[in-house]
């Protein structure tokens, strides 16, 4: 049963990644695009964790941790650039 459920959740997260891509392409303003990228990296972490569960190994959690760190830092850096025109003053 668990294999079927993992496949269904794979499909759900794939659909949500496509929706985020739509917002990233269409998005009328720059904060919309940053928000879509932020959601995309969170969904990518979900995809990597699910893939690790499907393969039965916990090796992929290190990649997920790296993506979490870099995604948060890049979101804050781009927002800071939008606010101030400079990242480190």
């Amino acid at each position, binding site marked *: *049963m*668990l294999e079927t*459920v*993992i496949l*269904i*959740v794979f499909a*759900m*997260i794939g*659909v*949500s*990644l496509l*929706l*985020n891509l*739509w*917002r990233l392409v269409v998005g009328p*303003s*720059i*904060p*919309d695009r*940053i*928000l*879509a990228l*932020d*959601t995309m990296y*969170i*969904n990518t*972490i*979900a995809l990597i*964790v*699910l893939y*690790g*569960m499907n393969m*039965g190994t*916990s090796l992929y*959690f*290190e990649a*997920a*941790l790296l993506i*979490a*760190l870099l995604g*948060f830092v890049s*979101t*804050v850096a781009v*927002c*800071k650039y*939008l*606010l101030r025109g400079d990242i480190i003053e």
Partner: protein
Amino acid sequence: MMEWVISFLLLLGGSLVLVGSIGLVKMPDFFMRLHGPTKATTLGMACLLFAAMAYYGFYGEGVSVKEVLISMFLLITAPISGYMLIKSAIHHRLDSIESTRGKDKIEED
């Protein structure tokens, strides 16, 4: 029994992630679109990581510290990035629809 719990957590997490992304696409202006990813997607990720913790604790090599680290990190950083995004949206004076409340409370800078 454990398989049912893990399946329920996985399905709940996947549905919440999907609901967050649908909200990101369907909502009319940015101030409403921010709600989906900051709330629904974060809760869905927490559910998925709890399912992974239960899976590895029950079938695999035991609960490692990495799942706990990822979920703690995501739950801490989602409000901060939401705050930065709404601050930049206010700074850029984005358009909003009529029924969005609180526009008159934004101070001029």
